[in-house]
């Protein structure tokens, strides 16, 4: 039998692992953050991604009376009109910067969907309370309390401050939007291993929650078929565009910003400072056959000739065929509203002519079986028409005959008119100058 009692009673005083009490350390942190924010002589350029939407860029100044002013790239008004409100730096979950009265940054978080287009009464899932993370000589970083997005702020120069104050953010945004509106199929060249990838570039300047304020690079690998893409949320500044969350990582390259090399040349830059000039391609970089197909993984499966008629600026042997059909319909007092060419399944191809007869809408359509080999579609030349296909046989004949002159190769169509949009075509393999064409 063993009786073992070990007891001890030892009184000791509390020994902290820190050299200061918590309230002293917090007070120092608050003072330090406040001082950093308010002593930047030319204010701060800030970027903030949102959880549910894209990212946004700001120019902010903080004063010792807890006033904050800002410009923001939310819309034209916020870019050129100074927004004024208040801020606090206080101890909550650590040292926090709180934008405690309403300003542009609050619009991203506004639960009222009609204010800025948020959804589900949670806005863009953004914060007005930010927890201090760290600072460097010229930057300070916070993270949103609820949605954990990084509010990254860099000290502005006097030149940048002057630009923002003179509606520079709106000017910059306008110039960028104009560049992308007039540059067809922009791309950059990225070296990956031993190949140079031409990566197509898209920039969405809208505020649509799911797709806005984002940029995407899409390219094809050396094998010719693998499509790779990367997206980043972007903020606009007076100097160009800033990526967020570390940058846009594409094939091992981290792109961090867009900036103007000169008055008309826009380039992307990676973390090492290497420059990637944005070039223009007459046709989209990705071959259309990789994007055109029935399965849901394909972007397009239909070519449409709309009520506006054939797209302009295109020269094709099909044009006369189509116009002939239009005249024949017109001769019977009917008008064509649209014509579509659609892959309705992995083996069925449909041609549909929508027309108006006596103020009522009708459709004459026919389905063909098809097989696909790479970029070539071969129809079975055995159309099965709907009730109107034989009725309108005379009028449709030019088109119906043309459909029997396949096989057809899928490819892009270019127009001499810029901004016509993405045009797709079905080229007769026997005669590449003759092709069906319309919008995708």
């Amino acid at each position: 039998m063993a009786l073992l009692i070990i007891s001890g009673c030892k009184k000791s005083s509390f020994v902290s692992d820190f050299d200061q009490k918590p309230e002293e350390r917090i007070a120092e942190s608050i003072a330090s953050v406040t001082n950093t924010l308010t002593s930047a002589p030319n204010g701060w350029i800030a970027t903030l991604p949102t959880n549910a939407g894209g990212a946004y860029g700001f120019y902010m100044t903080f004063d010792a009376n807890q006033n904050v002013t800002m410009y923001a790239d939310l819309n034209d008004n916020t870019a050129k009109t100074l927004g004024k409100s208040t801020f606090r730096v206080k101890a909550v979950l650590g040292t926090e910067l709180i934008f405690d009265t309403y300003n542009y940054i609050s619009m991203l978080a506004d639960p009222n969907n009609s204010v800025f287009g948020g959804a589900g009464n949670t806005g863009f899932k953004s914060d007005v309370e930010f927890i201090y993370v760290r600072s460097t000589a010229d930057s300070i970083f916070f993270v949103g309390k609820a949605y954990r997005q990084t509010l990254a702020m860099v000290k502005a120069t006097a030149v940048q401050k002057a630009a923002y104050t003179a509606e520079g953010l709106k000017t910059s945004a306008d110039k960028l939007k104009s560049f992308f509106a007039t540059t067809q199929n922009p791309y950059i060249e990225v070296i990956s291993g031993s190949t140079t990838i031409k990566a197509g570039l898209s920039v969405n300047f809208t505020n649509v929650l799911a797709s806005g304020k984002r940029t995407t690079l899409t390219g094809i690998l050396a094998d010719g078929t693998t499509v790779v893409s990367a997206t980043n949320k972007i903020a606009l500044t007076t100097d160009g565009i800033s990526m967020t969350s570390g940058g846009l990582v594409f094939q091992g390259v981290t792109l961090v910003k867009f900036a103007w090399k000169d008055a008309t040349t826009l380039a992307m830059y990676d973390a090492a400072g290497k420059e990637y000039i944005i070039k223009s391609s007459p046709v989209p970089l990705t071959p259309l056959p990789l994007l055109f197909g029935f399965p849901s993984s394909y972007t397009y499966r239909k070519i449409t000739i709309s009520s506006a008629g054939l797209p302009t600026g295109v020269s094709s042997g099909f044009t006369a065929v189509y116009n002939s059909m239009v005249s024949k319909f017109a001769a019977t007092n009917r008008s064509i509203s649209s014509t579509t060419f659609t892959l309705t399944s992995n083996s069925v191809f449909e041609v549909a002519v929508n027309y108006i007869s006596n103020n009522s809408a009708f459709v004459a359509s026919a389905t063909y079986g098809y097989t696909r080999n790479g970029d070539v579609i071969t129809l079975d030349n055995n159309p099965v028409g709907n009730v109107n296909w034989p009725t309108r046989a005379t009028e449709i004949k030019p088109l119906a005959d043309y459909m029997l002159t396949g096989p057809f190769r899928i490819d892009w169509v270019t127009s001499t008119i810029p901004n016509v949009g993405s045009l797709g075509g079905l080229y007769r393999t026997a005669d590449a100058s003759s092709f069906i064409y319309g919008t995708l």
Partner: protein
Amino acid sequence: MFITIQSCKKEDSASIDLTKYVDNPVANTTLDSWLKTTFLDPYNMDVIYRYSDFYKDNDKVVSPANPANVQPQMQTVLEGFIDPYKKVAGIPFIKKMLPKEWVLYGSGAYQTDGSMILATASAGKRVTIYDLNNFDANNADGVTRKLRTIHHEFTHILNQLVAMPTDFQTITKSTYTATWTTVSDATARDNGYVSPYASSQPGEDFAETTSHLLVLGQAWFDARANASTTVGKAALKAKEASVVQYFTINLGVDFRALQREVQNVVRNTYKLPSASFPYWIGQGLFKNITIDLSKPVYASSGISTNFSAAYQASVTAVAAVGNANRKLNYIRLDFISTTAANLYLNYTNTAGSTFDALYALNMTFNSTTGATKFTAGTPRDTTTPWTNATVIQAGVQPLINYLTGSNFIADWMPANISTDNYNSYGGFYVSGTPSNYFYGLLGQTAL
């Protein structure tokens, strides 16, 4: 075999000064000064408009307030809520009962069903007002809706300090329901509730009934009761009585006086259309106005000399008809529609028999502005009151001349009437000459 291992180790607690965590925002803007002198200094009320996470539910995304709307919003709290209570209940009551913290948020607080909270009250101490950024001082509906919510929330606070009357919850006990969002307004009314939300539970019912009586007014309440079922109307009137008793007896706050103060602000400052007298004439709530100048109300509240002269002239003229000394007792204006009215005379002959006489009047009436014009009409019938009218036509003529001789504006009046009579009297004044007016007891039942 037993092993015991014990140890105790006493530690000094770290002495940490939590007061150093208190955060005091710099408060020296014009707005902050106004809040200090208007709310903090006189009533010890703190108005917190700078966003803090702590005053709201964790699961709700709420925006900070736009400072530009803080003063207008708090101005309505001052004039529509604090001042009436101050005037009727006194400053000690305010300091003891009124919420000490007013927290303001810019957006609404959205619930999972998409509905939006306008205000909440908690712990007898704090009222939180939401949706400040949509405040529009020119939108009477919006302003009074918010004011109604504030009164509703304060009623909860009062109930937390002085319990609700126990009999209240028995009045419509069987129809309280948790699924009140599915109850239509008409059903709620027919069951004896001021709103569907009131039918959720007795506590909400009490707060809703109180706030509707105060802010939407007695006419609104009576109209709702009249439109309800017999059971519903009885329930609504019983709830009204319970609320009046709670305030007047349990709290020592004269409810009718309070109602009057709030109504004065709602009518005259916010000009809520549905709080105006002409609105309710247009709705057919008030079927008639009885004017008997011998009643004490005219001695205490006065009557214009123009009208009393016309009235007296008719008294004299009625007596003079055929020298028969008939005595005019009182008159009544009956509203048949917004385009037709009858002038009714009640008179007694020397034998002691009482008779009715009816005179037809045509009306043009604007239920928004109250603009009214009477013109003489043709008899509507050949029954006795109409034939009597012909008999004493010369007697009624001074009154007919008075009524048809001017453009009138319909309004609540007189302004100086006693609190007991405040909801029951209304009348007309000559447009542009407010010193020329007449008024009487309002009736909701056609006679």
